[in-house]
């Protein structure tokens, strides 16, 4: 897909900054980093303007709600400004600079409804690990199962199994994850009573402290099982279909035929020749889908009262707690972008055609 990574030898007459640009353009690792930093900047800026400049003007709404709690208009403005860490009377450009420098210092403002005067960073830091754990684990599980089933379908293509798998995959991909979650709660918890309902509410039983104890790990898993299944279920179809078509096209590649002619064992061909090449294009989608699944966590965590960032966001939305909303949006975006950077690096490591120039020459 992205085999177009071409190497152009640096021109001899180039000036110093030009050489730097050239290096960034040709060096895979540098290029990745610059791109990611740029995306983060875009999102940060976008968020700022969404909060400040959209028709619903959240700052105004915030001031109104503060006034409802008994503050005078002036007090409310000062309060909102201090919560958001922005001087609301300053020109927009100055506000933007303040906002950026606060961000660089890691200050995202304070919550004002959900947890009064608590820094948003603290709130997020408590919740983010839960979401990363549940979403990350599920995504890996579904990726692995999807790769396996996709390969199976591709190897047995046009068989009954293939048709069953692909139609199933396409169908579950289209069912909204909310519905999947509700159906699972209904079936497992209410109708069949396989999973006690208290394992479908919250992320830990009361009284259990996080730590490397067996008790904690078992409880963690019990609370994770059903929401985890929902995440796996709603992403599995996509991986399966993608892996299937990627494998089918790889199977047609000459080197696979040659590998067979070389008498290599089937297992070696499936893993190192077909599997490794077929999964390359999926690595990039893995990171992108992380954003999608984290987005979906807002619904799933709401249903399962799972103490992650998605639940925090749905609570913040319910209470219109803008500093929290803004903070979550930023932090999740940055997390997702970091993981795409990780995926890009992984891709470069797995595909030698991307790994180019740099120190070698």
């Amino acid at each position, binding site marked *: 897909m992205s085999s177009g990574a071409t190497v152009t030898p640096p021109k001899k007459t180039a000036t110093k900054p030009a050489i730097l640009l050239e290096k960034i353009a040709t060096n895979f690792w540098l290029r990745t980093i610059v791109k990611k930093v740029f995306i983060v900047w875009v999102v940060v800026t976008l968020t700022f303007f969404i909060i400040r400049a959209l028709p619903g003007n959240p700052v105004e709404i915030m001031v109104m709600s503060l006034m409802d709690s008994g503050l005078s208009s002036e007090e409310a403005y000062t309060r909102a400004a201090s919560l958001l860490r922005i001087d609301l009377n300053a020109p927009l450009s100055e506000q933007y600079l303040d906002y950026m420098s606060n961000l660089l210092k890691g200050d995202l403002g304070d919550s004002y409804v959900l947890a009064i005067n608590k820094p948003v960073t603290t709130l997020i830091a408590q919740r983010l690990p839960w979401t990363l754990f549940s979403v990350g684990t599920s995504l890996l599980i579904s990726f692995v199962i999807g790769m396996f089933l996709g390969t199976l379908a591709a190897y047995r293509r046009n068989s009954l199994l293939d048709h069953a798998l692909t139609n199933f995959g396409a169908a579950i991909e289209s069912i909204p*994850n909310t519905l999947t979650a509700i159906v699972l709660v209904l079936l497992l918890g*209410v109708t069949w009573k396989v999973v006690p309902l208290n394992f479908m509410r919250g992320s830990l039983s009361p009284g259990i402290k996080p730590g490397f104890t067996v008790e904690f790990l078992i409880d963690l898993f019990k609370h994770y099982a059903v929401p985890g299944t929902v995440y796996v279920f709603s992403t599995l179809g996509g991986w399966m279909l993608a892996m299937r078509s990627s494998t089918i096209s790889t199977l047609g590649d000459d080197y696979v035929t040659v590998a067979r002619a070389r008498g290599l064992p089937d297992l070696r061909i499936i893993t190192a020749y077909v599997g490794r090449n077929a999964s390359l294009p999926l690595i990039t989608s893995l990171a992108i889908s992380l954003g*999608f699944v984290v987005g979906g966590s*807002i619904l799933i965590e*709401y249903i399962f009262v799972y103490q992650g960032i998605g639940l925090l966001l749905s609570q913040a939305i319910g209470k219109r707690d803008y500093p929290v*909303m803004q903070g979550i949006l930023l932090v999740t975006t940055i997390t997702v972008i970091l993981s795409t950077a990780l995926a890009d690096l992984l891709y470069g490591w797995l595909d030698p055609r991307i790994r180019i120039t740099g120190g070698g020459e």
Partner: protein
Amino acid sequence: MGTTAPTRSETRSNQGNAFLRTFKLLARNKIGLLGLTVFLLMTLVSFVGPLVIPPETQAHVDQIYQPPSAAHPLGTDFQGREMWKMVIHGGRDVLIVAFLAGIITTLVAVTFGAVSAFFGGWVDSLMMAITDIWLTIPRFLLLVVVATLVRLENVWMLALFLAFFGWPGLARQIRSQVLSLKKREYVEAAQLLDLGSAHIIFREMLPNMMSYIVIAMINAMTSAIYSQTGLVFLGVVPFGNNWGVMFSLAYAKNAIYNPNAAASLLVPMGAIILFQISLVMLSRSLEEIFNPRLRRGV
């Protein structure tokens, strides 16, 4: 000039027949036919049904949470309203949003992807960079946050928003399609004849991508319903009666723990799932018909 004229008229007459031919092929494809039938039936019921059947505006306090029976074919909800009537009335808005979002998403994606691929060079690089950024951002979160700020009160606004957040993946696909079409002979010939970019894109390329675009539109509809369901469930889109609102309300009223109330939760959910699956069956069958390589897997 004389050499291109017959080609074009040929394309056009092909297009006329293409619709019929596609339908015939679809009729032979069991899954596709089933998908199409369910899709048409649900659309018909959702649009015509409300004209025939009066809406349930009154609560019937004595009929709350009746399980399905002869008197209440699909049971009743928390206000004692007939579920079957609710379902018939609850489809229209969902479908309109899906259609509109599907069309707008496809329009944006086709324009973006085609322009990007066709002009290439820095235009392409820039447009693809924008697409990539948009793809990377957790769009659903952004959508939710924005939805709290901008009141998505009517179907148009909601459709526009869904499209605004949904186009980048499709634009990438369209771009690679155009790139491969660009290398075909008839496009190269048109370029040599200097027929102009607009002519080449709209007259030579798009007709050859129609099947692909139709499939893309159906897929865009599927994701529009997906996101819409989530937004409604979170309560950020204020709507009257629709499938999403129905099951969200039932869920909020804890219908999940009440066996008698199960119908009020499951019926609207079933409607959404059924419609989604009919769309998937339809788009997969069309893909099989238009891309026989998929079927034979060569």
